[in-house]
């Protein structure tokens, strides 16, 4: 419709010349050396020494996440993690905060669908105190009743507050509407109703059941001496009593059939936030690198097909993108954007067309080449800090991925052929079976939304919860 589109053809020659330069420099990505060992009690330890900045990062994965929340108690894993620092055998919540802040430390704990994570960061000079604080929270929480009540009340209000910002909750509605009763359909942080059902006993039981050395991976990265660190970790975690934990399986959920649409009414919205897609891939999917290349082209960067169409060429939006949230079992795929009420229909039409075009035309050689350069050129800053590295070695271990995930990334990216791209589009990008979620002013956009699916549902954003289970 505008000159940018025409411009592409005119510029083809110049572009080809410039693109030819692009793959000149071959870089080689390397995972820094690290070691793995298992303590007698079953705790898996991953150590990575990285010198230059005097910081140490700890990242623990407890291999049970929100997917294991009992029905009706969504948020249990998340609240359990949140309470680790809110009272321990050695400290009240206030003392923990004072000791942590005094050394300028950071501590975070939360639960995603697949696992719970507990992380911390300290200056190297504060190693002893930092390790002691971290282990105090991970090994010795006491879950005081007053702190339980406080955190639950805050969490309920946080959900309410999030609903004032459509962007924050669009994904939660989408996951709920896409997955229904499957564990991936539940809000990992809970909702206004489920959080009020959670009792202290359930939290203590969740902790006792799942927080055990045999169910935990601990990654430590940063500036330290390896031998010294091994000894310190043995001192601190060696006494954590061994206990058997049965890792909860997460059954794969088949992709949704047909089309359906959920319209969430936010009456004061001047902009519609929309997402649509279907079930995507697991973290260890053998096609993951080819999918990454294709999704970079389709919706994973500024010049992606989606952003070009919805932002650059039409001005419908500030941004349009697509994502694969790859998990233990196949996680969601979605196409996401937002646009003013008046252009809701045209913008969604265009996003659907871009998806259809991907299926019809595939990707060009030029796009393929560009995306490969882009992925390789942008990757190094992802393994720049000890914080990033601790998280990467822990999650790779959790998902059963090795260092080749990084060491072979460039080679695997380079090996993606147009034929492979075609195959992953057919296999992993939905075309006819689409689940839509829109948050916006229903009275203004209902008519535009109707054509996308025969099966439609609606609810006001003020209604507690995101999507009731049992819809699938």
């Amino acid at each position, binding site marked *: 419709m505008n000159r940018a589109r025409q411009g592409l053809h005119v510029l083809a020659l110049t572009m080809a010349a410039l693109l030819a330069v692009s793959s000149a420099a071959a870089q080689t990505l390397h995972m820094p050396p690290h070691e793995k060992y298992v303590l007698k009690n079953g705790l898996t330890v991953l150590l990575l020494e990285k010198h230059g900045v005097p910081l140490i990062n700890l990242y623990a994965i407890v291999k049970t996440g929100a997917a294991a929340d009992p029905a009706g108690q969504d948020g249990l894993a998340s609240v359990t993690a949140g309470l680790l620092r809110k009272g321990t055998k050695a400290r009240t919540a206030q003392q923990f905060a004072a000791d942590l*802040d005094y050394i300028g430390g950071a501590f975070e704990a939360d639960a995603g669908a697949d696992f719970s994570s507990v992380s911390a960061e300290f200056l190297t000079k504060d190693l002893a105190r930092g390790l002691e604080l971290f282990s105090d929270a991970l090994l010795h929480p006491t879950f005081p009743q007053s702190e339980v009540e406080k955190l639950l009340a805050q969490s309920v209000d946080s959900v309410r507050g999030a609903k004032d910002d459509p962007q924050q909750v669009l994904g939660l509605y989408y996951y709920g509407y896409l997955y229904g009763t499957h564990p991936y359909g539940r809000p990992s942080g809970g909702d206004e109703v489920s959080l009020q059902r959670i009792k202290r006993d359930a939290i203590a039981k969740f902790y006792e059941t799942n927080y055990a050395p045999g169910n935990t991976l601990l990654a430590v990265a940063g500036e330290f001496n390896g031998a010294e660190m091994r000894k310190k970790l043995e001192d601190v975690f060696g006494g954590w009593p061994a206990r058997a934990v049965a890792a909860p399986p997460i059954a794969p959920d088949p992709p949704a059939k047909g089309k359906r649409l959920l319209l969430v009414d936010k009456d004061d919205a001047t902009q519609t936030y929309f997402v649509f897609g279907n079930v995507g891939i697991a973290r260890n999917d053998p096609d993951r690198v080819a999918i990454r290349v294709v999704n970079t082209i389709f919706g994973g960067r500024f010049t992606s097909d989606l952003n070009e169409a919805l932002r650059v*060429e039409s001005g419908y939006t500030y941004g349009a993108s697509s994502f694969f949230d790859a998990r233990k079992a196949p996680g969601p795929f979605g196409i996401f954007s*937002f646009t003013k009420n008046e252009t809701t229909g045209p913008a969604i039409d265009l996003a659907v067309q871009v998806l259809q075009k991907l299926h019809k035309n595939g990707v060009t050689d030029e796009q393929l080449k560009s995306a490969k350069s882009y992925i390789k050129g942008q990757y190094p800053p992802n393994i720049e800090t000890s914080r990033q590295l601790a998280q990467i070695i822990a999650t790779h271990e959790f998902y059963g991925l090795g260092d080749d995930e990084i060491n072979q990334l460039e080679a695997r990216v380079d090996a993606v052929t147009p034929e492979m791209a075609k195959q992953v589009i057919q296999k992993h990008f939905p075309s006819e079976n689409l689940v839509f979620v829109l948050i916006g002013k229903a009275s203004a956009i209902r008519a535009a939304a109707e054509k996308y699916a025969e099966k439609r549902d609606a609810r006001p954003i003020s209604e507690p919860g995101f999507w009731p289970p049992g819809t699938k």
Partner: protein
Amino acid sequence: MKTRLMSRAAFAVMAAVLLGAPVWGQAEFPVAAKTLKNGMKVLVQTDHSIPNVALYIFYRVGSRNEGPGTTGLSHFFEHMMFNGAKKYGPGDLDKVMEANGGSNNAYTTRDVTVYQDWFPRSALPLIYDIEADRIQNLSFDPQKIKSEREVVASERRLRTDNDNSGLLDEQLWATAYIAHPYQWPVVGWMSDIEHWTMEQLKHHFEMGYSPNNATMVVAGDVSPEEIFQLCEKYIEPIPTHAPPPPVTTLEPEQLGERRLIVRKPSQLPLVLVAYHIPQTNNPDFYALNVLRTVLFQGESSRMYQRLVDKDQIALDVSSSVEPAFDPTIVEIAIQPKQGVDPQKCEKAMYEEFENAKNAAISDTELEKAKNIRLAEFYREMRTINGRANTIGTYEVFFGDYKKLFDAAKNYSAVTKEDVQRVAKTYFGANNRTVSTLIPENSEEKAKQ
């Protein structure tokens, strides 16, 4: 601050980060500096740990250089800088950069417009070719202006009109300032976004984008020599011209509390409070940061302990300051719990300010604040991106990047008495503006 893309850059409290900056002397953290013949200063920080480069260009032009009718023009301009010049026409810049492994973004504040490139070192000459092209030969394609106007309107809807804190923040600045240009939003009023003219755009470009109005910072897998050579080839030939006229308006002293209310459908209320403070390069900068750390940072901070933990009337309380050329504000955000009277939160906060005025903070608190700043310094400095941004921020807002290395000294000089003095000086009732968002459901609205 408004950015071109959503995913990048948390700039806001950048200059506030460096308390107790410690042992990174010049030897461990060398920065090479050169001023080009056209007046652009170039700073280079070499780091070979990853084969990548972060390149920042700070232009000293922001929404403070705008006026009624042209609010938001600096930010719109930031967007237009990606929409075509002479060699790299509309759409080329992003396509070529990404095809060569690079990515980019930009942000605009009340004071500066900053362009960011992140790329493998193999793309080095290309990036300079692109930057030189757009600084001197930007095109003004009417079609691109039309569609980009819509993009910016969508950004405004995203960050302001459909975001309670964005909406209230805009009203807060508009009320805290009655004279100085900080009063209007960086993104611009919607009616201005809809009405800028081509002439206004061209004038803004000519005003703000002279090489002598810019500072370039390069961090990463480069040598100063190669960067200076590239600058001589690509940047130095760009002619210089007059920078923006000085902003001479001074905000008159505030003589009494100002209050404003926003009513809209919402689940939770919100409170934002502003206190006027001096510009970034004022000596009180350091003592103010120590005070803010003690009061607002971490779960052991006085405000968190009081409002969130003890009284349980708020979900969160925080403070922020953006780097500024002119006297600015400390902005405090309180997220009350549902059903809590926002004034109850205000009252608790004021009592804590009074405590900080009436008695000095403890030795432990002072020590804690310095330790927090030390850790944050390392967090910021551990990436080439963080270093590029911080070096540039010091150069632009403190007048010299070397002040970065004085931060340790300046913070260790802060005494408990200094902290008490700044609490008394700046945090009085007459100096504050209070904005409150009051939830209004549809039934209540219907009754009115």
